[in-house]
């Protein structure tokens, strides 16, 4: 079997997929021997890739393109189109995104978070500059989720898994970021997260990657059809109750990318421009356009 080193965040969704792969022996069927490096923080994967300790990690194309602009030739294959969501307490007077004006907002991931930038861009089209019109608290996603739960915040924009957990606790979903994409020019749900690996490595391991992608697709298929499978991975998700697990399940299934890669890339190109405009040089680096080689095309059937 061919060795494949994968770095995952232990609490991340990719770890769920890998659990399914292992449980069903999909790796053996694909003739891959998957070495999983479990890490504890979201940023650790990037270090692992950079340090050469992992072949594949999960992150977004924004970073891939930026890195390519700076000289590191990485490449990207869609993994999930799930994006964050704006959540408010059930009894909140906030009904639409426009109502966020003047409120206390918790923004997970900081000022360059893609969810946040997309939300800003969307609101800007309606003439609202949320950055100056609302009280913003940036912070670590779990902390902000807890803060929202305790009522310290009027609303939160958090990653999809934290949003799902809030949803299960009775919070109201004002909008998912993926709902905002059409107005920003995208044709459909766009996978911003993907498997990321080195281009040179990919070119010499095309077959291995193809088998890997096929394997993950199979896992996704299982997760999207079997509810029993979710019971098995429940401990991994950390879901404290059935409602939360259900929310995780539904959002996860929605996020499975099903569009042709060319469509994904076209939409990414559009969104990149939006993000570059609002996030500026700091976010995207020197390149004003999505770098040409950002998407990996060599998967048969795409």
């Amino acid at each position, binding site marked *: 079997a061919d060795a494949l080193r994968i770095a995952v965040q232990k609490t991340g969704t990719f770890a769920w997929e890998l659990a399914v792969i292992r449980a069903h022996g999909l790796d053996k069927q694909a003739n891959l021997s998957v070495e999983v490096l479990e890490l504890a923080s979201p*940023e650790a994967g*990037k270090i692992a890739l*950079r340090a050469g300790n992992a072949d594949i990690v999960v992150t977004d194309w924004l*970073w891939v393109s*930026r*890195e390519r602009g*700076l*000289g*590191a030739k990485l490449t990207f294959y869609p993994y999930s189109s799930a994006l964050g969501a704006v959540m408010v307490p059930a009894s909140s007077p906030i009904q639409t995104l426009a109502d966020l004006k003047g409120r206390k907002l*918790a923004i997970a*991931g*900081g*000022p*360059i978070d893609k969810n946040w930038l997309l939300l800003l861009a969307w609101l800007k089209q309606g003439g609202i500059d949320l950055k100056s019109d609302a009280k*913003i*608290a*940036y*912070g*670590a996603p779990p*902390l*902000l989720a*807890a*803060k929202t739960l*305790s009522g*310290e915040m009027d609303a939160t924009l958090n990653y999809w898994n934290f949003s799902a957990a809030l949803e299960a606790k009775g919070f109201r979903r004002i909008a998912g970021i993926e709902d905002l994409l059409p107005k920003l020019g995208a044709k459909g749900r766009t996978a911003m997260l993907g498997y990321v690996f080195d281009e040179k490595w990919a070119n010499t391991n095309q077959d291995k990657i193809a088998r890997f992608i096929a394997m993950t697709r199979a896992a996704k298929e299982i997760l999207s059809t079997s509810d029993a499978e979710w019971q098995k991975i429940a401990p991994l998700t950390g879901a404290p109750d059935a409602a939360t697990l259900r929310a995780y399940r539904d959002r996860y299934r929605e996020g499975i990318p099903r569009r042709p890669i060319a469509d994904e890339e076209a939409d990414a190109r559009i969104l990149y421009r939006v993000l570059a405009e609002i996030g500026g040089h*700091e*976010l995207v*680096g020197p390149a004003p356009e999505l770098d040409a080689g950002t998407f990996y095309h060599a998967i048969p059937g795409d």
Partner: protein
Amino acid sequence: MARLLSFAVFLVTWWVASLFAGDAKLPPPPTVLTAMIAEARSGNLFFHLGATLARVTLAFTLAMALGAAIGYLMGRVRLADRLGDPWLILLLNLPALVVIVLAYIWAGLTEVAAIAAIAINKLPTAVVTLREGARALDAALDEMATVFALPRWSRFRHVILPQLSPYIAAAARSGLSLVWKIVLVAELLGRPNGVGFEIGVAFQLFDIPLLLAYSLSFAAVVLLIETLFVQPFEARSYRWRPRAA
């Protein structure tokens, strides 16, 4: 002179190392300088540096003052030491992350919570250092001060303080470095500005030059303060020591 030379050696080492390691692994000095200048131009550097320095100053002062007082007490009064010791060890060995998270949970995502959390992290290290200092105080001089009925303040200033000063210096230097490490975590987890916040951003983007630009700016500020204020002051107050070879 020697300092300048040493600084030059540092720059050269860095540059050479970056040539060997490659830009991606270690950006050379000019790249970092460019990033620094760009941040300075946009005003970002000063804004974030200012925010962090304000927090550092407050938390540091708080922790040093309180830590020195408690450490002195524990070093001198046996009972205080006995009672305080388990708390001290606990506080020493509580992870920064936990303290910061708890502070944010209790006091909200506020400036007060951040500063308190940082101070609490630094406090115990000041305590242990000053405690050693207080334990090593010279009993003979103490007797002298008692016999001559030196007033409290005079006794503190002229008898106790000079004996504690190497311990204070050690606690201050290593403490500042600790505060600086922790303020970054606090800013990373729940503040909307400061060097830690920017480093968090740079880290998310994996922008090493930016990461280094902010880190080195802070180090430069400290280096400046050391050279201009602390070391001349130290040289003056240690004049009495027999000069080393």
